């Protein structure tokens, strides 16, 4: 009995110290009062009233959810086909490994650097614009390339596509190849095999990848600030701004709401797909 408790203790302590305590602190601070200069321990719901009473909140959530949805769609489309190619079309194990590692190479640099590196590519005088100008495809630089929703989503996709590829690839590698042959034997075309066998059996991986991507985008504040040129808002950015103004209780209340929303989205995804057998 004691042994069992001891064996569980290290993980329990880590979880308590780094998850339970911070969230509890957040919950406590979210009901404190504050002035420009001071935090006042209290129990008030004004912070939540501010969050739910302001149209800015709804607009910001709408913008964040839109980014999350767009990023999810694009990473899913890209991630699924990369995983499919690696799992079913690369025959040799060695090449599978090599190509898989190639996919992870962008992760050797930091998020910020990877975002910033788009600027010389997409900027007004960047690679894309100057190339198109030289080719006379356009005669004005394209403005939407940088500091726009386009560049924001592009950057998210660049940052998070791998989080979609890895779990889907994992699930696909566990699909019995005889199932593919059985489908072909029954007369399935390549596309029918994908639709009726590969996609249904890859669902757990798709769900896990989706959870990664959606939670990461929902919580982001740096990429959106950098890549939208300050023109788009996100919930994370809103919280970060409140922190900058030392409005800790307001930020905490906002964070609690964000946490609840993200958990609700994840719960919704888990309802659609049973991922337990993948864990």
């Amino acid at each position: 009995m004691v042994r069992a408790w001891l064996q569980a203790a290290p993980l329990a302590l880590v979880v308590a110290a780094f998850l339970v305590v911070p969230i509890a602190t957040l919950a406590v601070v979210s009901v404190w009062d504050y002035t420009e200069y001071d935090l006042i321990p209290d129990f008030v719901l004004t912070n939540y009233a501010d969050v739910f009473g302001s149209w800015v909140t709804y607009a910001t959530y709408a913008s964040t959810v839109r980014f999350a949805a767009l990023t999810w769609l694009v990473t899913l489309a890209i991630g699924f086909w990369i995983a499919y190619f690696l799992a079913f079309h690369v025959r040799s194990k060695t090449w599978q490994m090599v190509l898989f590692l190639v996919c992870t190479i962008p992760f050797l640099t930091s998020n910020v650097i990877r975002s910033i590196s788009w600027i010389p590519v997409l900027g007004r005088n960047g690679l894309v614009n100057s190339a198109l100008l030289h080719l006379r495809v356009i005669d004005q630089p394209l403005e939407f390339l940088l500091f726009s929703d386009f560049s924001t989503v592009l950057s998210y996709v660049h940052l998070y596509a791998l989080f979609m590829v890895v779990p889907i690839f994992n699930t696909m590698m566990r699909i019995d190849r005889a199932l593919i042959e059985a489908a072909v034997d029954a007369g399935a075309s390549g596309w029918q095999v994908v639709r009726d066998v590969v996609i249904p059996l890859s669902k757990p991986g798709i769900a896990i990848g989706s959870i990664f991507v959606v939670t990461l985008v929902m919580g982001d504040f740096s990429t959106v600030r950098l890549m939208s040129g300050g023109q788009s808002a996100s919930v994370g950015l809103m919280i970060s701004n409140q922190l900058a103004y030392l409005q800790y209780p307001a930020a905490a209340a906002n964070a609690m709401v964000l946490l609840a929303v993200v958990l609700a989205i994840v719960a919704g995804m888990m309802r659609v797909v049973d991922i337990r057998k993948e864990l």
Partner: protein
Amino acid sequence: MQSEAASPSRAAGTVELVAVAKRFGDAVAVDGISLKIPGGAYCCLLGPSGCGKTTTLRMIAGHERPSDGDIRIGAEVVTDLPPGRRKTAMMFQSYALFPHLSAQDNVAFSLKLRGVKKAARRATAREQLKRVHMEDYAERLPAQLSGGQQQRVALARALITNPSVLLLDEPLSALDPYLRVRVREELKRLQGELGVTFIHVTHSQEEALALADLVVVMDRGRIAQAGQPHDVYSRPSTAFVARFIGGHNVLEGAVQRRDGQWAVLTGIGAARFAVPCPAAVGATVRFAVRADKVVLERAHAELAAIGGHVVAAAGGPNRLGGRVQAIEYQGAFVRVTLDDGTAEPFTALVPDDVFYRAPLTVGEPAAASWSPADAHVLTES
């Protein structure tokens, strides 16, 4: 056996391989085999693992492209056709049921691909499930079915396309021995009812002998022998077939003299055998003797003197002596193995009542004898 020409649907199930070969890199899996399987026949491809039998099956199914040669099904050359257009259906060794689909949706899968509406395809699938007595399990997922039940579903799924040829890859190997015999009977019954050509890959000679109209024994990518089970068992063509099919002793000797139709051989030691064979004096002859045609007797006097090695036992040819190495009770028979001094022990299957009238014990000297007419001469493989 029904005649092939009697019905056009049977002719549609004729499978012909013409010099079919398959190479994987440098490895030769199938080495130019030619074979004609009559429509409506139950054919077993039999051989040890790595003999090319599964590759042959997969080439007929279209899951593997032959490196050389052609495959014809019915009147059509199908070498370049995809699996779905060959009028074949395959039942996979692991059954390969789709884990995300219920039994009826698994069976209805090929109908779904053809755009048949859900209600219609499920109705057809249920009929198929009824044929294999699985209609009560239509809603279950494969994981909720036992191995035997999964196999029935796989069979129903293969048959729903009305194939002319059903290909079965070791269909019984995952079942327990009791179920194996029952399912075997059922396969044979079903094949008779449907009149569809069955091609069944197995490494079990017992299975092949029990089921097949045509047994094809394969060895290292080639066909060692093809024929009716009774012919293959009673007249194996090579030492490999005799050994693989089991129940045979393979012996050899040099022709010492001729006596009419008989060649008299001397084997290892001083053993002398008469075999029906036209070989000239001096030639080496290999022959097989069925273990159940052998008579065993106790042989104290003869063997004690020479320490249990092979002797030309007194009383003429076709006797062999040795020490009893092992005794296995098998029910109707007792399997007695003699150490005759060669690498390969000599086996006799003695009816249990005969054996227990005067039971032998391990280590005892014994003499085996058989009628010269029961010696079957083998060709070199």
